[in-house]
């Protein structure tokens, strides 16, 4: 028997049944629920007179709509408020565990899962959110689903799935100082394209991935969808296990030892076959900045906005031309000459404690530049916020001129009040630079937390390695 990939191992251990055409029923261990993609699923259950299959497999939290200021005043937008109240009502009615908005444990759904130990190796995890792949950092098969599937999992604890192909992305060598997990994933997407991994589950491997913290691995897996893959994962090692020990949902006592022994098996076999392999050398990855309206439109910070005229593919060329018009940029403009108006540090990509530490290290003893209209830090969860405050990071941020906010998705997708105004430009640690993503007419440049902090200080993009830290 040939070896199996990590993905195949998790898949095989969750197949309830398969039809001859390969359509399988896959058992789901954990469903994370938030307010935006669940109300219609609960309504569907109600209309059909169905009950959830297993309520303790779910964990719910409001994150997309929640305000990041004056939270004790509640949500002022009545439509947002109704959506968050609807989540609370549904969770009460159906018995789903919920962290409410003012609970210290509230936060972005993909931050709180690992933080609580509700994300455990070998699990299948779903959520009505495309960044569910984040949890793959813990050797889980985690992917985003639509609302009909949220209802399907609530009703049956299973999903109808076909097996995807296996893509190995090996990042070998060692990252240079000042270069982060965010730069690795932006470099990967720049190389393989935004549909480069469609139909695949990605396994991230190699010395540079092994060297990353769990937070860094989460950043990488998080943006798998920006390369087209529904899921991305990393094998279990000591870091995975150390991170989870003692977390509220993690097993305890003798069961912990039993679980760890099982988790140690969660690596691809040496003779496993991948359908495709991509290799990157970590040593040559530079800090990256996106220039366009798709996450594949990225360049190293010492680069320039590319010229569509040099692109032979007419469809791609038109995409680049449209992006330049929307972004109000000229071909050949140096990235370091682009000046953001707002700086956003947060999101399920880069809203964890390590991200805040990296940004604070750059900001310590510095002030944001005069042209920066707003710089804000939105911690990924209440517990991240609490930890950062215990370390004094909030003081560093506020002394530098940043606003220190309450946790949530915030300006990553601007469903709450935090947004770009038309034509405003951001340096953002989030995951999508789509047209209008951070506010209608807003222009997003994706960067790492350290690069966002550096841009805030300089007033333009700058190689963070030029700053003394």
């Amino acid at each position, binding site marked *: 028997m040939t070896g199996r990939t990590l993905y195949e191992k998790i898949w095989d251990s969750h197949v309830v049944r398969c039809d001859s055409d390969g359509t399988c*029923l896959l058992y789901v261990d954990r469903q994370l629920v938030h307010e935006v993609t669940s109300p219609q699923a609960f309504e569907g259950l109600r209309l059909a007179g169905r009950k959830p299959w297993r309520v303790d497999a779910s964990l719910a939290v409001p994150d997309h709509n929640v305000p990041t200021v004056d939270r004790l005043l509640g949500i002022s937008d009545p439509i947002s408020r109704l959506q968050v109240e609807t989540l609370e009502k549904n969770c009460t009615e159906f018995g789903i565990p919920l962290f409410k908005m003012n609970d210290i444990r509230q936060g972005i759904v993909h931050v709180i899962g690992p933080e609580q130990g509700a994300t455990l190796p070998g699990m299948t995890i779903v959520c009505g959110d495309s960044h569910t792949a984040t949890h793959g950092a813990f050797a889980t098969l985690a992917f985003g689903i639509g609302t009909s599937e949220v209802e399907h999992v609530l009703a049956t604890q299973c999903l109808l799935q076909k097996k995807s192909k296996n893509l190995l992305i090996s990042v070998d060598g060692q990252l240079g100082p000042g270069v982060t997990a965010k730069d690795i994933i932006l470099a990967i997407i720049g190389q393989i394209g935004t549909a480069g991994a469609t139909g695949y589950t990605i396994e991230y491997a190699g010395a540079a991935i092994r060297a990353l913290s769990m937070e860094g691995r989460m950043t990488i897996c998080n943006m798998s969808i920006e390369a087209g893959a529904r899921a991305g994962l990393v094998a279990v090692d000591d870091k995975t296990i150390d991170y989870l020990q003692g977390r509220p949902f993690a097993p305890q006592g003798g069961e912990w030892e039993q679980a760890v022994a099982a988790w140690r098996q969660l690596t691809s076999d040496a003779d496993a076959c991948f359908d495709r392999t991509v290799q990157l050398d970590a040593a040559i990855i530079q800090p990256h900045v996106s220039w366009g309206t798709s996450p594949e439109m990225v360049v190293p910070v010492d680069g320039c906005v590319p010229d569509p005229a040099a692109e032979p593919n007419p469809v791609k060329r038109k995409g680049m031309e449209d992006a330049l018009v929307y972004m109000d940029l000229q071909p050949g403009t140096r990235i370091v000459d682009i000046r953001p108006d707002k700086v956003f540090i947060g999101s399920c990509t880069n809203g964890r404690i390590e991200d805040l530490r990296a940004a604070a290290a750059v900001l310590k003893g510095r002030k944001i530049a005069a042209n920066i209209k707003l710089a804000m830090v939105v911690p990924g969860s209440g517990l991240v916020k609490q930890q950062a405050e215990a370390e004094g990071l909030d003081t560093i941020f506020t002394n530098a001129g940043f606003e220190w906010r309450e946790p949530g998705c915030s300006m990553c997708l601007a469903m709450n009040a935090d947004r770009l105004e038309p034509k405003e430009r951001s340096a953002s640690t989030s995951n999508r630079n789509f047209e209008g993503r951070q506010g209608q007419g807003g222009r997003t440049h994706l960067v790492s937390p350290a690069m966002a902090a550096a841009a805030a200080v300089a007033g333009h993009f700058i190689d963070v390695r030029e700053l003394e830290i």
Partner: protein
Amino acid sequence: MEKFAQLDGLVAPLDRSNVDTDAIIPKQFLKSIKRTGFGPFLFDEWRYLDHGEPDMDCSERPRNPDFILNQPRYQGAQILLTRENFGCGSSREHAPWALLDYGFRALIGPSFADIFRNNCYKNGVLPLTLAPAEIEQLFREVAAIPGYRLQIDLESETVSTPTGATFQFSIDPFRRQCLLNGLDDIDLTLQHVAEITAFEERHRQANPWLFRNPEI
């Protein structure tokens, strides 16, 4: 779910690649707790010149005359012709809900994003892929021929053009059956309750920690 068997529909071309679900239905409309009513806000930022908000009456809003769906010749279109990687980004099922509510029953393109395509199937919207050369031909013909319609037959998996060409497509056989018969996935899965229960018990024996979640 509404059945999908045949469709003879007017075609509208959207000549852009990587159309993301944020563009298909912007975030402010995701605050709704309903499945319906998204059609007037489909492609909101491209379709209107002002800023859209939920519960707006769109009949009075200024339209962007350059946006393809605002051209009189494409009114009533049921088939959207697209480019690569249509539906990328967010998993929001509001995207196919908005397309369906607007009147689209089928999408034709060279490729679709994974989660989006899956969400279409669940709502009786057919996302079908054709070869790049066939897509090019359709873009040329729809521009050249006013009132351009295509006939889609899911049973035979064919698209027929008014110029006499017939293109073959292929979709997942399970999805095809579901669309043809309007089958509900949950009903299908619940036919296997005994197997799910048996699996769950084995899974619990092997991984007891997965079934011991704390009270929160």
